[in-house]
Every structure is written in structure tokens, then in C-alpha cells.
């Protein structure tokens, strides 16, 4: 059977996500089967491509989409993409299965599946896209689906705030990323990532290179929550547990890491690139480890340990040696498997016991045996105990770090310390809830439904299988991936057992240190009580300050520009039109008026002028609003007649209709206005008079100037001639409006529609107040 194209997979993914909510409402409990089948089907198509990709030949596809922007639907499936794609779909299957039971009692569970399907598809898009702009598109879609999922419990204010925080941080990073990509595109002249392979020298020697690196890394660091952008991730735990398992540990937060890996051999290799990510990664690794120590909520513990691991992965990319890439790859797979599992386990505990506080959990192994075994398997992998994949990951990590010159000694201390903190987290999350004496308040707790057990167990079990037969499962993928990251094969076999050496010793030290820290934790916590970090060094405070500062600025700007005084608006509008326009009028080419030779006037022109002037006088001196409105109507009709006389029947027709409706509207408003009194003082009236007069004089001068200049524009002629043959109409004004310049009209009527909604809302607001 031929494999479906990658574009087809993506389109199907979005289509299925769109109908998923309706299917859920229709199928209810039986949705489970569908929820598993969909990601598994995707997983299978990627599995089928495994032999092809593992042999070192990437799959490529390209369709033209918006060629003028350089945006093509081009996809590439190489070792790196395939690894991510398989993780995304496999963990996706486990999460879909789990969530269809977990969310059974949520009110808006139907929506959830739409969101999470959209996320899965977008994430696949991120790792499959070869075109940078396309990648960016999917990148933003993952941010948006993350926003929707974090804020899923939108009744809670904290959920909404956390969702917004995640969106703003990753969204700002996304903008930086876009800017970086555009710069990169301008340097290389292409947006296809695969076309940069041979351009490393060109890019790294370009003067824009530092800017490109900075912008792309800001994008990657915000997404993957690297210091100092890490603070959104722990708050994102407001999302339901399946979301935390899927987006905020196993897949989405690794998008930034994917990006760094993807761009590594195109724009990497320089001190700037390597050192920046090495330092940022190492800092995140150790700080997150330290911060995890005082957490007591299951999910926050896991969140901080995720941060620490993300830092480790970034640091490994920064080291950039062959061994480091190998460690990166194994560590990445191991982490996705065990952390996905542990988040789901945390969700199960929350679901069955109603609490996520580690202090309140204990002795559950009898009540929840399967969950306990699953948690133990994942925990052993996380602690790096032989024979799980996590063990190989940590061994290789230590080896890679020891190789680093000249800071290897210092880095290894940090790496061991961070790993020790991971061990503490494992004890707290993976063992402590299950071990010890059964607690009386947890008597009634029972095992979770099967659908919530299968997924986590398979993920945890995969960790064991991968540990036992690493070369069989991931060896080829590693080779193919390293070609993508370093552009060369590693030629290193993955083995479980490396013999008794320094690295194994370090593994023991890590475990011992972890146990020690765990035992000391109660004492340490009581010592740390009341100890608060100063706000200045907390990046989350910077975020809060920046956000509230922006809102204050916006409030100040609004209240100073829009104070509600219509007169002031008029003055601003008139002067901002008048001043620049009169500068133009009197500066360029000088002001010169040549009056037309024929100055004779007809009697009806005189009559019309008299009517208009009289109406104006009446308007200004009237002592009631009704009189003013009527005289303004007269004035308007007078102007309309002028349009007729000078051959603009279209404009006249519209003017008449508008004047009529204006009078009606004014009369309607009249009923709501207070009694008419002359409130303005003489000085005020003088000021208004001056403003009005200057506007009038300006218009007169402009008209005189325009009529005395020879208009060499051939537009009039062009439209006049083209109207009938091209526009099929003799009314030039109308043809221009609906055909030649129809796009302008479309914009205008859209604005009109929005204005109507605005008027409606304002009136509603008023009636609301009087109620």
C-alpha cells in the first residue's frame, strides 16, 4: 500500500479535530475507540516510513501555496522529524485514550478533543515542515491550542491568567522567531530549511548572524521554557492532567528544542550559538532542580523536573559533540516516555483521591496496584536505574559532559546535582503515594478504569523495552537524526551496559545524593519556611510588572485621547487634517490662484447661495435644537442642489438621502437630550468660531488652488474610457465603486458594519444603565 502524503495527514488531522467534538457528543463512552484509533493510525503511517527514513533518505514533498511570500507547503521527514512524529502520535494515543475517560464528567469535554486534536496536528506540522514560514504557522497554532487547553477550566480566574501568561510569553517568542526567520530568509534567499544545509559559512559570516541567532533562540527558549522564560510552565499546570502530560512535558515544550536541533547544523557551530544554548540550558537545569525541591503539589513537582530536563537537553545541544547528540537523543525519548506516564499517574491519583498534595497521599499500592507498578517503572527510568532507557540516557549524559573542555568538571557537578533533584521528585511522585501504611482517609480509593491504565502502562513499558534493546529500537533513528543535527553519522552503538567505570560511579552518587536530599527534605523545608526570594530576581515578577505597566499605559492613553468630550474630538480631527494639509498646500510649489476667466453667475446660483447663507445664519443663532436641525437640513439640501447643477447626480442623490436620514436621526436623539441652554461663554464661542473659520478658509483656498492647477492626472480620462468596455457600465462613479476599486468599498462597508455594532453596543450600554 502506498503511504499517504504528509500534507494529506496534516489536512486529515485538522479535519478530524474539527469533527471530534460532534463525534464525542454522538458516541459518548464509545468515543474511546475513535480517540485511540486516530492517533494510532497516524503512528502506523509513520512506522511504515521508518525503514525508508532510517536508511538515511528523507521523505520530501512540496506544493506551491503562496509563492509571492515564499510560503510553500513543503514537508520533510528525516530521522529527527520521524522521532518527534512517532513520540507525538504514540503519546497522543495514550493521552486520547486516557482523556476520554478522565474527562467524562467535565462539562465541555467535547471541545477538549477538538483542541487536543488541533494541537497534535499542529505539532506534527511543526516537526514535518520544511518551509520556515509554514513551520512558524504550525508553531503559533501549537501556542494557541496550548492557550485553549490551559484555560480549559475557564471558570477559574487562575486558569485564565495562566493561559494568558503562556500565550503572551510563547507568542512574544513566536514574533521574535518570525523576525529571525525573515532575516535568515533574506540572508539565504530561501525559506526552505533543507536548502540551508550547504550555507553554514554564508550564514555564520553574515553581519546579521548575531541578530538571527538571538531572535531564533528567544523563540526557542520561550517555547521550551528556558531561563529566564521558564515561569509560564509551572503555571500551565492549571490545565487538566492529560494536557500537562502531552503538551507541557512530552511534546510541545520540546518544540523549542526541536527548533534548536533543526537549525543546529545550518546556523550553529559558532561560539555564539553553542555557548549561549549551553549556558542557558545549564542554568535552567540547575535552577529548576533547586526550585523543584520545595514543591509539594504532584503536578508542580513534575513541572519543575520537566524544566530541569528541558535545560539538560538544551545544554547537550550546546555541547554539540557526537556523544552529546547521542545523549540528547536518548534522553529526549526517555523523558517523553517517563514524564508523560508520571503526569498521567498524577492525574489518576488526583482523579481517584481528589488531592495532588504529596503530604496527603500514601499507602495506595494495595488499592491501585497497576498504577503503582506503572509509576514505579516510569520512576526507575527517571532516576536512571538499570535496565531502563533512562539509565542509558543518564550514563551518556554524564559521559558527554565529562568530555567538555574546559568546564567539564564544573558541569558534571551541576549535572549530578540536577539529576539528584530528579531523584527526589521521583520519590515524591512515583513512590511516596503508594508506599507506607494505608491511610484511613483514603480507604475508599480504588483502581482507575482500564482506559486510564493502559496508556500510561504502555508508555512506561516502552521505557523498559527501549532500555533492554536500545540498538534494535532506536539505533537507526539515532543515526538518521544525527545526520539532521550534525550532518554526519555517529557510528556509535547504543548499549545498555558500559562496564564498571567513572560514569557508573557517578550514577550511584546521584542516587545516593537523591536519597539523602529526600530524607533531609522535611528538615530543609522547615528551615526554608518564611524564606522568600526577593522579587527582583524572579522573572515572573518582571512579567507581572510589564503586563500591568502596559495596561496602565493603555488606560492613560485612552483616557487622554478619548475623554468623552465630542468637542475635543472635533478639534483634534479638524486640526490633524488641517495642519499637515495646509503645510503641503502652501509649501510645495507655492500657493497661486488664477481665477477662471468667466466669473458670471446665474440667478439660481445666487438664490442657492442666499439660501445656504441664510440657513447657516439661522443655525448659528437658533435658540432651539429643532430649528438648528432643520436649518442644517436646508443647508445640506442646498449643497446637494449644487451637486446637481455641476453634474454629479450620484453624489446629489446620496446627499439627499443622507440629509433626510440625518434629520430623522437627530430628531430621534433630541428626545434624549436635556433642555437646550446656551452654556458656552463668549470666549468659548470665539474659539469655536476661529476653528470653524480656519477650516472653512482652508477648504476654500484648497478648492481655488485645485481648480487653478492643471490636473495632468489621466485617471479621469482612463476611468471614463474604460468604464463601459471593461466595467460594463456607463455610470463611471458606480463602476469605480463596485468594480475598479471594489476592494476599497469592501473595506469601507466592513468598517460601516463594525460601526453599526458599535452604535448598537453604546445604545445598549445606555439603556442598561437606566434600567
Amino acid at each position, binding site marked *: 500500500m502506498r503511504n499517504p502524503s504528509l500534507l494529506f495527514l496534516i489536512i486529515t488531522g485538522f479535519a478530524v479535530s474539527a469533527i471530534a467534538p460532534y463525534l464525542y457528543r454522538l458516541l459518548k463512552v464509545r468515543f474511546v475507540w475513535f480517540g485511540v484509533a486516530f492517533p494510532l493510525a497516524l503512528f502506523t503511517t509513520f512506522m511504515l516510513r521508518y525503514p525508508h527514513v532510517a536508511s538515511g533518505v528523507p521523505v520530501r514533498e512540496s506544493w506551491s501555496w503562496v509563492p509571492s511570500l515564499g510560503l510553500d507547503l513543503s514537508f520533510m521527514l528525516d530521522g529527527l522529524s520521524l522521532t518527534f512524529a512517532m513520540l507525538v502520535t504514540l503519546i497522543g494515543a495514550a493521552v486520547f485514550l486516557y482523556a476520554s475517560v478522565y474527562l467524562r464528567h467535565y462539562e465541555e469535554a467535547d471541545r477538549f478533543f477538538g483542541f487536543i486534536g488541533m494541537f497534535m496536528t499542529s505539532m506534527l506540522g511543526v516537526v514535518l515542515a520544511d518551509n520556515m514560514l509554514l513551520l512558524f504557522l504550525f508553531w503559533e497554532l501549537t501556542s494557541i491550542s496550548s492557550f485553549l487547553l490551559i484555560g480549559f477550566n475557564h471558570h477559574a480566574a487562575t486558569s485564565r491568567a495562566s493561559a494568558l501568561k503562556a500565550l503572551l510569553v510563547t507568542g512574544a517568542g513566536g514574533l521574535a522567531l518570525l523576525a529571525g526567520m525573515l532575516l535568515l530568509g533574506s540572508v539565504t534567499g530561501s525559506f526552505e530549511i533543507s536548502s540551508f544545509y550547504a550555507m553554514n559559512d554564508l550564514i555564520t559570516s553574515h553581519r546579521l548572524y548575531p541578530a538571527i541567532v538571538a531572535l531564533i533562540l528567544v523563540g526557542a527558549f520561550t517555547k521550551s521554557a528556558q531561563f529566564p522564560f521558564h515561569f509560564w510552565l509551572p503555571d500551565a499546570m492549571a490545565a487538566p492532567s492529560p494536557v500537562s502530560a502531552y503538551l507541557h512535558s512530552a511534546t510541545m515544550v520540546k518544540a523549542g528544542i526541536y527548533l534548536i536541533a533543526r537549525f543546529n547544523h545550518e546556523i550553529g557551530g559558532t561560539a555564539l550559538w553553542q555557548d549561549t544554548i549551553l549556558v542557558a540550558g545549564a542554568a535552567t537545569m540547575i535552577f529548576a532542580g533547586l526550585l523543584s525541591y520545595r514543591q509539594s503539589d504532584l503536578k508542580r513537582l513534575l513541572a519543575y523536573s520537566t524544566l530541569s530536563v528541558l535545560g539538560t537537553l538544551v545544554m547537550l545541544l550546546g555541547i554539540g559533540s557526537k556523544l552529546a547528540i547521542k545523549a540528547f537523543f536518548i534522553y529526549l525519548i526517555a523523558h517523553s516516555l517517563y514524564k508523560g506516564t508520571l503526569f498521567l499517574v498524577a492525574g489518576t491519583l488526583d482523579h481517584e483521591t481528589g488531592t495532588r498534595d504529596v503530604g496527603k497521599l500514601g499507602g495506595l499500592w494495595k488499592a491501585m496496584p497497576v498504577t503503582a507498578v506503572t509509576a514505579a517503572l516510569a520512576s526507575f527510568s527517571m532516576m536512571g536505574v538499570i535496565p531502563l532507557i533512562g539509565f542509558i540516557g543518564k550514563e551518556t549524559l554524564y559521559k558527554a559532559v565529562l568530555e567538555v573542555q574546559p568546564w567539564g568538571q564544573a558541569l558534571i557537578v551541576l549535572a549530578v546535582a540536577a539529576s539528584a533533584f530528579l531523584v527526589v521528585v521521583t520519590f515524591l511522585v512515583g513512590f511516596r503515594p503508594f508506599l507506607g501504611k494505608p491511610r484511613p482517609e483514603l480507604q475508599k480509593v480504588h483502581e482507575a478504569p482500564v482506559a486510564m491504565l493502559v496508556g500510561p502502562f504502555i508508555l512506561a513499558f516502552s521505557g523498559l523495552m527501549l532500555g533492554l534493546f536500545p540498538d534494535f529500537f532506536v539505533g537507526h533513528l539515532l543515526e538518521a537524526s544525527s545526520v539532521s543535527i550534525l550532518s554526519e553519522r555517529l557510528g556509535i552503538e547504543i548499549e545498555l551496559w558500559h562496564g564498571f567505570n567513572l560514569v557508573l560511579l557517578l550514577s550511584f552518587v546521584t542516587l545516593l545524593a537523591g536519597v539523602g536530599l529526600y530524607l533531609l527534605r522535611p528538615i530543609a523545608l522547615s528551615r526554608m519556611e518564611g524564606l522568600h526570594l526577593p522579587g527582583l530576581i524572579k522573572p515572573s515578577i518582571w512579567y507581572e510588572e510589564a503586563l500591568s505597566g502596559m495596561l496602565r499605559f493603555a488606560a492613560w492613553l485612552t483616557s487622554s485621547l478619548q475623554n468623552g468630550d465630542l468637542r475635543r474630538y472635533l478639534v483634534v480631527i479638524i486640526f490633524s487634517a488641517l495642519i499637515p494639509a495646509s503645510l503641503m498646500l502652501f509649501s510645495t510649489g507655492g500657493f497661486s490662484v488664477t481665477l477662471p476667466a468667466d466669473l458670471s453667475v446665474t440667478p439660481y446660483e445666487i438664490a442657492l447661495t442666499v439660501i445656504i447663507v441664510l440657513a447657516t445664519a439661522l443655525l448659528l443663532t437658533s435658540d432651539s435644537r429643532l430649528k438648528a436641525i432643520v436649518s442644517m437640513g436646508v443647508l445640506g439640501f442646498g449643497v446637494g442642489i449644487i451637486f446637481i447643477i455641476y453634474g454629479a*447626480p*450620484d453624489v*446629489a*442623490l*446620496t446627499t439627499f*438621502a*443622507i440629509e*433626510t*436620514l440625518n434629520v*430623522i*436621526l437627530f430628531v*430621534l*436623539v433630541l*428626545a*434624549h437630550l436635556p433642555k437646550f441652554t446656551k452654556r458656552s461663554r463668549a470666549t468659548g464661542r470665539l474659539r469655536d468660531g476661529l476653528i470653524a473659520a480656519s477650516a472653512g478658509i482652508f477648504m476654500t483656498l484648497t478648492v481655488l488652488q485645485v481648480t487653478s492647477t492643471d490636473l495632468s492626472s489621466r485617471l479621469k480620462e482612463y476611468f471614463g474610457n474604460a468604464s463601459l468596455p471593461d*466595467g*460594463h*457600465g*456607463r*455610470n463611471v*462613479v*458606480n*463602476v469605480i*465603486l*463596485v*468594480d475598479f476599486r*471594489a*476592494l476599497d*468599498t*469592501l473595506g469601507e*462597508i*466592513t468598517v*460601516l*458594519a463594525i*460601526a*453599526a*455594532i458599535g*452604535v*448598537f453596543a453604546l*445604545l*445598549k450600554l*445606555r*439603556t442598561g444603565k*437606566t*434600567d
Partner: protein
Amino acid sequence: MHSLILSTSSRYLLVLLQLFSVFLLLRGHNEPGGGFAGGLVAAAAYALYFIANGVEEARRVFRFEPLTVVVAGLGVALVSTLPSILGGMEFMQSVWVKTGIPVIGKVGTPLLFDVGVYLLVLGITLKIVFSLAGEDEV
């Protein structure tokens, strides 16, 4: 203030003015008129009817919620851009069909677009008129 003469004549005027507004709309491509002026005239017809018979009666005769008409107008205008997109032409390039029907003549996307403008202007004006007039009763 209720005037029997105005109230009776407004019924006939409503129909006549509406016909006139459609006439303006259709002939707009060749003679003075068009969707904007047509829409305003149609709105003025209902405004007259409202002055004579009160806002509730006018709302009833108009039948639709004005905002729905606004949305419909915008929708029609957007639909008129579809042939150019689907045909792979410049955005909003006009497409004409010769119907051979007298009076209407050729039908094309610009006419459809003008119908959209007509509906939108009618809807907006009536929304404002009805909202302002309806305030008294609240």
C-alpha cells in the same frame, strides 16, 4: 401624535419607495444610483413608515433583525469575491454572465457586490433608527 393620512399613505409610499430603491440599485451601473443610494432610500422608506406608525409596527413590517441584514449584506459582498478567487483571477476581478433578461440585462459579480452594499446600508441605518427610537419604550 398619530395622523391617519400619513399612516395610510405611508403604506403605499413604503411599497413605492422600496420599488424605487431596487430600481436605483439595478440601474446604478449605467445611470445615477447604486447600492449605497438605493439602500439609503429603502431605509428612508422604513423610517417614514416608523414616523407614521411607531417603531414596533415598523419593526414588524421589516420582519428581519437589522443586524442580520447587515451580516447578510457583508456576506453577499464577500460571496461576490468568490468567483474571482475560484477562477484563479485577480482578487475581485469582475465576472459577468449574459442573461438576456430585459431590464436586468447582464448579471455579474459587481451587481452582486452592489446588492451586498444595499443590504448593509439598509441594515445599518435601520439598526440605528430602530435602536434610537426603541429607547423611549425601555
